[in-house]
Each structure stands twice: as structure tokens, then as C-alpha cells.
């Protein structure tokens, strides 16, 4: 569950050390617990916060950033990044809602997913084949894919004509919102993939030391293609789910989502320089953000404070990380 380290610790004191370090590497869960305690005890929020309804609500609100953050974790452990996820969300949602009347609900949704996966894959392919930094490739894609959204929608919002679409967004499984169930299910699957499969090990290897990974026989190109495609598909899925919840799609959906997602993943302990990170941490990062928004909302603090606190937390995590792991590596973008 802790972030993995490429090198094996050699010292004898490693056990305690490793434990302290793993906690230090995932301070986000300590923060999540502190938040839960704080809002459960605080007068003004304690009457409402710790109820099943509110907690499920937090989980539901976490779904849209969360699903993308899960995919972004893989890409960022690879030492890559994807800024185009917000635009992919909007394109997939617009296609899925806009083509319902022509194609039918399910085929339109599948088309949205397929387009998202294809564009994600395209990002990965260009990054690998041309050697251009993924930050630049996906910065271009962020603008370009948003352009595609506007070309397709002509700047219009679409409303889901099929009521079953919006009903799905409101539906529950055993009292839990279906969308939240989907998020949790994907999180569990991807946690297993990252910790227990060859693809997961390769993800750390490629991000930790790409040349070594190549020498060890990892097919980096195919590997990156898989992770970027997966991220594109997850971003598209997030867009679809958000549009089922709204019963509509808007061309501006997902603007600045890329920044929220990256914030959540970094809060969860994944490093931009690659090789480190975990799904558990990312889920903590997403929940940490949403609990803060929810609790502060209940406290009737101006919502704007959340932005200030989040930004400060992001920087604080970085300082903490530097303190606990020493000098740290200087990446290309450091």
C-alpha cells in the first residue's frame, strides 16, 4: 500500500525506518483521518457531517476527479503527465449525449469512450515516437481536443433525450450511488493491477529508470501506449458519468479538471519525477480534497478558501516530502 521504492533498503534499521517513511510518504491519509475527526467533532458541522448520506455524497462527488486520478497515477508513475483529460471528458460527454438520438444510448456512450481512449492513445504514441515531452504533447492536445469539442458541438450544450441516461446517474446499488460504486470498483481493480501484475511492476520500472527498464526487456512504447489509452478511456468515462448526473453535456465541461486531478495525485504521494506512487495514496488525495470542500461548505466558509487551502497543502506536501526523503532527485522539470 505504500509507495514503492526501486532500491532495496540495505540497513538493519530499515524496518522502523520504512514504516515511518511509508507514513511520511502518505501523509494524505493522516490528513483524511484528521479531517474526518475535525468535521465530526466541530460544532456546526458535527450535526450533519458524519451521516451515511453525507459520506456517500462525498464519495459521489469524488467520483469524477477520482476516476481520472486513478489513470493519471499510472501515467505519472511513468514520469509522464497528461493535461488533456479535461478536454477528453467534454468531448466524450458531448458525443455520448449528442449522438443519442442518431445512434441510440449505448452505442453513443461506447463511441464516446472509444474516442477518449483513442485520443489518450494518440498522446502516448506521439510522446513515445517523437520523444517530445508529454507535458508539451498534452498541452497541445488540451487546446486541440477542446477545439474538437467546439467543432462538434458548435458551442452548444446537449440534453439527454433518453431519460434512462439521467436515471442511471441518479441510480443506487444497495443504497450506494452507482457512480460511486463504479469509482470504488475501478480503484480496486487498478490497485491490484499496479501492485500485483507485471504491468504494474513495469510502470514503476519505466518511471524509475527508463533505460534500465529498456535493458530489462520492458517494451516501453507499448507500455506507455497502454497507460495513456487507459487514462483517455477513464477521462472519457468520467465525462460520461458526469453527464449522466447532469442529464446534459456542456462544451466547457472539465475545464481545469486536469489541475484538480494532478493536485489529487500529487497530494496522494505520487512524484512527478516518476517511479513512486500508489492508488491508495491517490484515493486519499481525492477524498482529502472532497472532504475539505464538503466540510467547509457545511461550516459555511466561503468556498474560495478551499482553493487557497488546497494550493497551500500541495506546496506543504512537497516541503514535507523534501524534508523526509532528503535532497531528492532533480527531474527534467524539477
Amino acid at each position, binding site marked *: 500500500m505504500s509507495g514503492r521504492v526501486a532500491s532495496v533498503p540495505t540497513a538493519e534499521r530499515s524496518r522502523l525506518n520504512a514504516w515511518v517513511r511509508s507514513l511520511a510518504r502518505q501523509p494524505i491519509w493522516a490528513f483524511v483521518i484528521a479531517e474526518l475527526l475535525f468535521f465530526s467533532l466541530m460544532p456546526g458541522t458535527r450535526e450533519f457531517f458524519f451521516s451515511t448520506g453525507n459520506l456517500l455524497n462525498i464519495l459521489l462527488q469524488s467520483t469524477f476527479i477520482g476516476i481520472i486520478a486513478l489513470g493519471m497515477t499510472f501515467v505519472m508513475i511513468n514520469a509522464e503527465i497528461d493535461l488533456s483529460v479535461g478536454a477528453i471528458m467534454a468531448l466524450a460527454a458531448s458525443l455520448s449525449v449528442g449522438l443519442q438520438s442518431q445512434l441510440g444510448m449505448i452505442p453513443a456512450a461506447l463511441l464516446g469512450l472509444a474516442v477518449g481512449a483513442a485520443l489518450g492513445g494518440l498522446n502516448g504514441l506521439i510522446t513515445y515516437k517523437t520523444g517530445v515531452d508529454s507535458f508539451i504533447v498534452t498541452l497541445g492536445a488540451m487546446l486541440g481536443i477542446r477545439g474538437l469539442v*467546439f*467543432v462538434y458541438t458548435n458551442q452548444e450544450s446537449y440534453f439527454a433525450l433518453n431519460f434512462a441516461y439521467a436515471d442511471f446517474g441518479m441510480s443506487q446499488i444497495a443504497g450506494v450511488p452507482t457512480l460511486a460504486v463504479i469509482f470504488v470498483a475501478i480503484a480496486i481493480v487498478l490497485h491490484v493491477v499496479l501492485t500485483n501484475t507485471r504491468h504494474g511492476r513495469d510502470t514503476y520500472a519505466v518511471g524509475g529508470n527508463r533505460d534500465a527498464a529498456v535493458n530489462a526487456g520492458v517494451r516501453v512504447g507499448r507500455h506507455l501506449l497502454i497507460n495513456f489509452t487507459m487514462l483517455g478511456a477513464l477521462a472519457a468515462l468520467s465525462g460520461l458519468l458526469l453527464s449522466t448526473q447532469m442529464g446534459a453535456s456542456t462544451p466547457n465541461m472539465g475545464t481545469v479538471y486536469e*489541475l484538480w486531478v494532478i493536485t489529487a495525485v500529487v497530494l496522494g504521494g505520487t512524484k512527478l519525477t516518476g517511479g513512486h506512487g500508489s492508488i491508495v495514496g491517490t484515493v486519499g488525495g481525492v477524498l482529502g480534497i472532497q472532504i475539505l470542500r464538503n466540510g467547509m461548505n457545511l461550516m459555511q466558509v466561503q468556498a474560495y478558501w478551499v482553493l*487557497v487551502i488546497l494550493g497551500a*497543502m500541495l*506546496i506543504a506536501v512537497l516541503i514535507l516530502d523534501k524534508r523526509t526523503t532528503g535532497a531528492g532527485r532533480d527531474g527534467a*522539470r524539477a
Partner: protein
Amino acid sequence: MQQVQSPGSWRERLRSILRDQGILVAFVLLLIVMSFTIDRFATTENILAVIRQVSILGTIALGVTFVVIGGNLDLSVGSMLSLATVMVVDLHDKIGPLPAILVTLVVTLIAGAVNGTLVGFLRLNSLIVTLGMLSVLQGATLLYSGGKNVDIANQSDTWFAVFGRGRLISMGNIDINVPVVLFLGLAVVLGIVLHRTGFGRKVFAVGGNRIASSYSGLRASRIVFSTYLISAFAVFAGAVILGSRVMGSQNTVGQTWELQVLAGIILGGTSLLGGSGSIAKTVIGILIFGFINNGLLLLGFPFYAQWLVTWLVIILVVWLDVASKRGRLWAA
């Protein structure tokens, strides 16, 4: 003895020109093609209009160029622009134009100093630090204004209008606007600072290899800190022009500007890895951005067509750059 110029060396020279000045060549070709295919493109009014349109984005890009050449990123300039524009406009009516400008200058420099301290002295990852500051400054903007848009009540009766709406020279239908002069003037000043002073050389050295530059006795932390101050100053200048031009501001006016600024810098051929680039490249990159947009609009395409073109052009430009450095087109 004079060396005989063989055809091979001539070709060699052409190749090296293309490699070093490829963007400039592409830019000139773009202008030529556009002037032949678009009727109203190659008129003085249109060209001046384009430069005016990109002047605010360009002004900010000039400052960010220092940060990028120093080996870092600044994603906070968009939010900083929002904060500075909202402040200068809001304070204009409350404390008068000059105090408003001074207070805004101090606030942006403080924001830049925070970036510079975290990245320069604490040596934290600049992408994350400035991403955090993007959030903090956007929040600060909304807290400051309470979420309301701000504007200047008496718009026709303030000298503050000169920065965004003023004209320096007006001959017939040719206007030289103040924003254009400010943009190009700042480009010249910052160009001299970057390319003709010891400080500028140190920025390149630190961006090229921070560790080596530290060993050679440069105070790398201080230099990185300074690049963020310059970036913040450029944002301040952009905010004054923008506030003066619009005479009002939304709270999110600068949203996504940080990425457009980077796109312009990259288009100009400055590497995000640091250690190379120039003010001239940034000016050209920003102008390419503006002329592509202008040409597409004149051809009747919607405004978002430029985003699709930018997508292609950014990747192509950087690809050709890295390909020429490694001597092979494909990385794999």
C-alpha cells in the same frame, strides 16, 4: 588562405540556418502564404491589430521566458493576472490610479517572491509549486472580490485609460497603440537584460545545469528567485494594460493563460528544459500564435479553429527541434 566554398558547405550552411532559425523561416513563410491567400491580411492596420491583440499575452510571456530559460515553469501567471487585474481595477476608484498601480505591483511581486523562494531557495519542483500557487492566487482573487466582477465607474475621465486604450501615433487609419509600444518596449528592455548582461548569462547557465552552475560559484537560488520576480513584474504590466483596456475585470480573467503563454513560448522554439531560448523567439512565437488566429478568422473559420492548428504546430515545432538535436526523426 581563403577557403573555397563547395556546394556541400553551402548546403551545410542552409541546413544550419534551418536548424537554428527554423521557427523564423517558418514564420516568414507563414506570413508570405497568408498575404497571398487572404485579402485583408497584409495591411498595416491588420498587422498592427494582431500585435495589439497579442500584446498582453506577449507581455506576460516575456517574463515567463526568464523562468523557462532558468529551467523552471510558472503555471501561476494566469491566476496572478486575475488577481492583479481585479485589484488594479477595484482599487482605482477607491484609492486613485497611481496608488492602485503601486499596490498591485507590490502584491504581484510578493506572489512572485513566494514562487521564487519555494523554487529557488527551497528547491521545490516548480511545476507543483506554481500549480499550488495557481490555486492559492485564484482563491485569493475570489476572496478579495467576494466573487463579484469589478469595474471602473468613470471610464472616460481617468488617465489610467492610457495603458490599454491610448494611442501614441495616429496617422490616417494607422494607429500605434500604447499596449503595442509597452509590449515591444518591455521586449527590448528584457532582451537586453537577458542577452547583454551578466545576470542574463547566469540565467542561461543555471537553466542549462543548475548543479554545475552552483559549483562554478553562481548563486543559483538567487537567480531562480529573480526570474520569478521578473515573471511577476511582467504579469503586473499585463494586468495594468488589461485592466485599462477593459476598465473592468472578471475574477477568472486569466484562467488558462498560463498554458497559452507556455504554448507561445514553445512555438517560438524555447525549450522547456531550460538553458536555451531568447526573448526574440518568444516574441516570434507569440506573433505566430496571433497571426495564425487572425488568418483563420479572416478565412472565416471560428475562433476555436486556432486551437486545432496550435495542437499540430506545437507538437511539430518541438518534434523538429528534438529530432534535429538527436539527429533522427523518431525517438524509438
